């Protein structure tokens, strides 16, 4: 009975192969980012930081980075605001057809991005709007809001309703209660939502590809550079930096999310990796 559960050897082997398959391509990035050769091929020929210098000197890249930062920052704020409204409404108010509505908000999670990109493009053109950073932001808000709703929904649902009642009981208004009780308690969740939305938007390619006008985002820029073999090592270096940043942001977000559920309900987060699962399902 007290024998601990051990996975059979075959299963462990399967898991290792699976992880290798998943992460090997990413492991290749740093390998070639620091490789002193213009050709992406083994064997490695020496260590260099030259490709990072190349990035530093490419001004078109800087413009793309700037665009991506603007889009990601705006998207993270907008989708988090929408997420707060939707998650709060879903957590507290008896809305008829609530499950259906929330499900509808979550749909972009499973819609193929190509479809979302094309449909948005068609609609925008029909409306006579010209493509700009704003059109990309609209598309990104659409795909990021479900993540925000999921993260914030957990934060709001775990909140003890009697805390709000206690605040009202002590004379505070509904708005004051939101500001003094609900927001501080949800703050880690809000930050987590912003970081996740930022990361998703920053990395997103397909929708950005359809909806950018003349201002390319970073992923679109990278894609455009792949036609030139000489630029490849530089893109490897750039990709390496982006992976580092994404990991840092997502780890921070996960840390915040756990802290938020500890603060709110006093125990460890259940379903420990709610949005990691969702996020990896989306790629």
């Amino acid at each position, binding site marked *: 009975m007290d024998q601990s559960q051990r996975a059979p050897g075959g299963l462990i082997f399967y898991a290792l192969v699976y992880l290798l398959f998943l992460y090997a391509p990413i492991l290749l990035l740093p390998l070639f980012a620091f490789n002193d050769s213009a050709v992406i091929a083994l064997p490695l020929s020496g260590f260099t930081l030259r490709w990072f210098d190349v990035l530093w000197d490419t001004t078109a890249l800087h413009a793309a980075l700037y665009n991506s930062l603007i889009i990601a920052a705006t998207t993270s704020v907008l989708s988090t605001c929408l997420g707060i409204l939707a998650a709060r409404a879903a957590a507290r108010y008896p809305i008829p057809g609530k499950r259906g509505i929330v499900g509808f908000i979550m749909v972009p999670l499973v819609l193929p991005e190509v479809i979302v990109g094309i449909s948005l493009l068609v609609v925008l053109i029909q409306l006579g709007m010209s493509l700009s950073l704003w059109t990309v932001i609209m598309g990104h808000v659409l795909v990021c809001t479900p993540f925000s709703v999921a993260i914030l929904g957990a934060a709001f649902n775990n909140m003890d309703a*009697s*805390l709000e009642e206690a605040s*009202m009981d002590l004379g505070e208004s509904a708005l004051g209660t939101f500001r003094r009780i609900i927001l501080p308690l949800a703050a880690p969740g809000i930050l987590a939502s912003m970081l996740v939305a930022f990361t998703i938007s920053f990395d997103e390619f397909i929708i950005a590809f359809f909806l950018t006008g003349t201002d390319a985002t970073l992923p679109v820029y990278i894609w455009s550079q792949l036609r030139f073999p000489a630029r490849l090592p530089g893109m490897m270096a750039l990709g390496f930096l982006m992976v580092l940043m994404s990991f840092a942001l997502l780890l921070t977000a996960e840390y915040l999310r756990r802290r938020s559920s500890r603060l709110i309900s006093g125990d460890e987060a259940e379903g420990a990796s709610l949005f990691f699962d969702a996020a990896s399902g989306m790629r």
Partner: protein
Amino acid sequence: MSNQPIIQVRDVAKYYGDEPALAGVSLDIMAGEFFSLLGPSGCGKTTLLRMISGFDVPDRGSISIDGVDMAGVPPNRRPTNMVFQSYAIFPHLSVAQNVAYGLKRLRLGRVETKRRVEEALALVALEGYGGRQPHELSGGQRQRVALARALVMQPKVLLLDEPMSALDKKLREQMQTELRRLQRAVGITFVLVTHDQEEALLMSDRIAVMFNGSIAQLDSPEGMYRRPVSRQVASFIGMMNFLRADIASIDPSGATVNIEALGSALLPGVSVGKPGSATIGIRPEMLTMLYGDHATAERVFRGKIVDTEYYGDLTLYQVRIDDTATVVTVSMRNTAGRPILQAGDRTRIGWGAESLVLLDPLESAK
């Protein structure tokens, strides 16, 4: 305590679906009194309390506090404060910030706020705890913070929803005494919801016993215990022997009843009800076991002990009355020199007509 009602509840009803959670409740709560709502789970105690505090709205009827009709007045503008069952301590604020929470809107200035917070913490014996975080407190201390946070607002009425239910027995008893002392000290009207009859008897000036969304009886603790109006109330508060009886006649001197196994008795002062069958109640401690052959009482019956339950300070005996199948419970204090009798022993039991209670007298008219 005064004779001025501070809360007037008039015919308040609340329905969840077709089921009434409250079926037309009316009551007055006096200024400065310690009032308890007592009843089994689901009888509507919390529902009534939440309507007084403004978190729920009655489907029918009215509630006024201090002479002002509360219809349409939100919780944050009512002169009531609540101690929640979960305490609802704000987890991101220190003890002092929790207590000062409601004061902030009053803009009293830092010095005055600090003074009031310290005063409130002293009231609940938590001096020096202001800097603590909520997770550094025990259950009993959290409850005191919740009390201090409500009392610091100087409400006209303090509402408490089962504030002791999360505490262990020892701490609960200690807090019951302290809460009673506190209420006398501050003179604020307390309305306590509880399903613990001992707690209600111990702490209250008056108790309303509720069943199924209605008030079954509203009385002082002593009145509730000595003169329960129905079998339901009697069995909810303490122990009671129930005996079948016939009301033979009712006249100005009282009611004459024929009680199963005990015989005929005159209940002085009883004038409600009509001749017919009825239920008579008698508390186990009102039946006295007579030790020695010479001890005597107003009325005596003989019986045989069928079971003995020893509780340390007292013993409960199940006694079958001779020549009948009726078994009654007798409670005896274990004072010095009193032997503990065992099953099979024979005994004599004394009782008096003045300790009989006629239950459901109106029911018996049917």
